[in-house]
């Protein structure tokens, strides 16, 4: 019963929401983060579900925010999973509102801009045009031209401009029309954005958010299919997060804006039209946390961004074959949520990483090293990693599909790993 219920959830296309809101904490020390009333309700609701055991974890123990790092408090294994009930109670199941991922991003942006007048958006065509992916549509009329600033085409310069504005009190959000164009801003990001807080001895903070769509799209060509997370992961001083569903997109956007550190928020070109029902109440997710998408016993599958959806597709097949994979959307690409990952590894003893990055020097490569270093004794098998090849993304459809990890490959890899 449990597996079919889970299977239904997966087929419904509504991903499990990781981490009920009550356990969310803002990464920054700011005291004005809204605490959410939703939390307690969802926890109670979840615990009434039959067939699913849920335990809350003390998420603050990860130690990024004001709470001290306290490993002894972390006795529990699972993160609580807020699950939509499809049995009975229709009233609670229809709460919230449905929207697409780019609308969720916009909602998050609007809420933050209303809340804090220093928040502004800088980028190409973000003003009256509404952004090339319509994330900022309608906002210029609402907030004015100065807060939705259209810039000339010079990524290095408008990123630098955002850094300068951040140092003098604003909280800019830089929108790259495509993540690949931010390679032009690499100098400002690597030499100044990540560094100036450190080299100034903490005098100048740079609370900016750099966001944009990246990843392999549908035949966009090599230059528009860049995966920049692998290039930026080495830069000290930056935080990186990747969103994958409307729920976490909105939550991460809000958290990133409130953070005092420079945050790069990776969106994916093909996920903008993903639809999901999200809560009406305000919620902010934690930037450093991973999301438990599907609890399981046999193997831990770590993934992020678009690959999460490929993994979930593969999971349908795997479940029908009798496997019980645990799927974790790592969300936080820098730093990794090794706490959640470690707990999962200790349970399943096998890891498969599914990512869209290139093989060499990708997120998967770093994650493998981190897991090996920290959880070597827990592993029964070498860490598997499925990633794109080290080739520029070709234009031709079938070739492009082959550079991205496909669900059958995931199924095969899981089967191989589970033989251990």
């Amino acid at each position: 019963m449990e597996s079919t219920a889970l299977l239904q959830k997966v087929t419904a296309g509504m991903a499990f929401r990781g981490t009920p809101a009550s356990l969310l904490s803002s990464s920054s020390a700011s005291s004005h983060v809204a605490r959410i009333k939703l939390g307690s309700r969802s926890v109670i609701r979840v615990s009434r579900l039959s067939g699913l055991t849920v335990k809350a974890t003390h998420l603050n123990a990860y130690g990024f925010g004001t709470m001290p790092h306290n490993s002894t408090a972390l006795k529990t294994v699972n993160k609580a999973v807020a699950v939509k009930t499809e049995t009975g109670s229709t009233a609670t199941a229809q709460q919230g509102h449905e929207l697409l991922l780019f609308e969720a991003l916009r909602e998050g942006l609007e809420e933050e801009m209303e809340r804090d007048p220093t928040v502004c958006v800088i980028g190409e065509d973000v003003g009256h045009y509404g952004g090339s992916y319509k994330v900022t549509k309608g906002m210029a009329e609402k907030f004015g031209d100065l807060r939705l600033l259209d810039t000339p085409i010079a990524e290095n310069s408008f990123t630098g401009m955002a850094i300068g504005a951040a140092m003098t009190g604003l909280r800019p959000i830089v929108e790259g029309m495509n993540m690949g164009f931010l390679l032009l801003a690499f100098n400002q990001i690597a030499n100044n954005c990540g560094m100036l807080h450190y080299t100034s001895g903490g005098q100048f903070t740079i609370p900016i958010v750099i966001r944009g769509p990246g990843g392999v799209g549908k035949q966009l060509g090599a230059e528009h299919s860049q995966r920049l997370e692998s290039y930026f992961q080495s830069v000290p001083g930056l935080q990186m997060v990747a969103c994958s569903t409307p729920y976490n997109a909105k939550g991460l956007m809000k958290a990133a804006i409130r953070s005092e550190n420079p945050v790069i928020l990776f969106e994916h070109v093909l996920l903008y039209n993903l639809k999901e029902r999200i809560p009406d109440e305000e919620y902010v997710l934690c930037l450093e946390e991973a999301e438990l998408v599907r609890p399981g016993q046999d193997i831990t599958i770590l993934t992020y961004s678009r690959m999460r959806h490929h993994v979930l597709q593969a999971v349908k097949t795997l479940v029908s074959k009798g496997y019980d994979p645990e799927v974790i959307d790592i969300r936080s690409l820098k730093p990794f949520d090794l706490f959640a990952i470690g707990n999962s590894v200790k349970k399943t003893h096998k890891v498969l990483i599914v990512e869209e990055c290139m093989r060499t020097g990708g997120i998967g490569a770093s994650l493998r090293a981190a897991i090996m270093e920290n959880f070597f004794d827990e592993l029964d098998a070498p860490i598997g990693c499925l990633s794109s090849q080290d080739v520029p993304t070709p234009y031709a459809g079938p070739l492009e599909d082959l550079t991205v990890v496909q669900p059958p490959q995931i199924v095969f890899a899981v089967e191989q790993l589970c033989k251990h």
Partner: protein
Amino acid sequence: MALIRRAGRSLSMLKRSSLFHGKQKKQRQQPIVSPSLPNLTPHLPSSLIRLQINTTYSAIPRGISSCSFRSSYIPNRLLTSEAQPKLPDEGIDDTQFLDFPGVKNTAFTCDLKFVSEKSEEVPCYRVLSELGEPVDGAKLPQMADALALRIYENMITLQVMDYLFYEAQRQGRFSFYMTCSGEEAAIVASAAALSNEDVIFAQYREQGALMWRGFDLQEFAHQCYSNSADYGKGRQMPIHYGSKKHNFVTISSPIATQLSHAVGAAYSLKMDRKDACAVTYFGDGATSEGDFHAAMNFAAVMEAPVLFICRNNGWAISTPITDQYRSDGVATKSRAYGMRSICVDGNDALAVYSAVKSARSMAISESRPILIEVLTYRVSHHSTSDDSTKYRSGEELSHWKVMRDPVVRFRRWLEGNGWWNRQKDTELQSHSRKKIIAAMMNAESMKKPPLSDLFTDVYDSIPTNLKEQESYVREAVAKNPNLYPSDVPL
């Protein structure tokens, strides 16, 4: 033949008025366009082209029916019942009408003529002669003796500090230094014209500006010695000063990155409606960087109150001006971006003061960027890692050092006014020398930053991965005490 020009308010003025108030943009006028007409400019937002039409036309050329642009202009005619003003009879040819979106105020020509690569001459503003006397016809800026003496004292202290710190580097007390010999007037006088609220984004040779703001000699020494009292906590090279309380942003080594920061800061100041501007210094070499061009363009488009002060000292390490750019100076470049500029004699402290002061008030009141080219000469080597005699003649160097010293020039003017004399000069020099040496000794004796400062401030709070790395390092130090100096705190 009369050529039709577009009249009316330019779009930028309209935009500026709504931008300056920073409020919700007022509704654009509804376009007066018949919906059945084809849109010849689909690549442009429709509001843009329609607005131009509504504000620019009071007259429709005759023969419009044969004009290929009819679709944009007929609606205006159809909706008005008033007679259009008569056009001059000199045979208006409807094909002479220039309305390409890319340019504003120009006309067609049938002469095949190229625009010359030589620009219109930009004169260089100065008010004092080389001998420190007011030039005929010059209007000297209002400068009280107190201010003038403060500027001079700053310049002397700066010179002494530069000399002593350079020697200290040669003695191995710290690893690097850059002097600003020959550019003291350019830097100190320009800083004197600013207010303390103006945010300075410097390149690396502007310690004079920081000194003007009140940065202590002791604080300079701490930064160069990278000890625990350094505001940067020992994380940056010498001369990469930064002080939030003095509104002087920490210097970052890559050239010209600070230009876009300044534009961003100006945008922030404009949003806050502060009576302050952003000021950025850079050298002639920086004008080749992509960041320079983009920042200039941005500042002009955003109408940001930035002062771009270019210390054109003739050399970028070993690259002379002739290998750096082909335009005639830097001030002339601003025209390309639609920006105002001025070229000033950088060795004339009064001229620099006057120019920067008036540029600043223009920048803030009119919300526009200004480029100020300050012509000077780099008497110093590029840095302590450079020996400039390798690429320039000793004669050139000694000429500028001896004959064209900006501090001496200003001193002559002070002496001419009876505000200064030789004795005061010697006293000032020896007094500064004593203070600086004392500061250096003090800085040298201070402890270096502790090991814990290696991991703080990377983020707002230390994440676990850095805590892990820190404990690893501490373990290594504990196990091998000979690896770590005993006098450095942990």
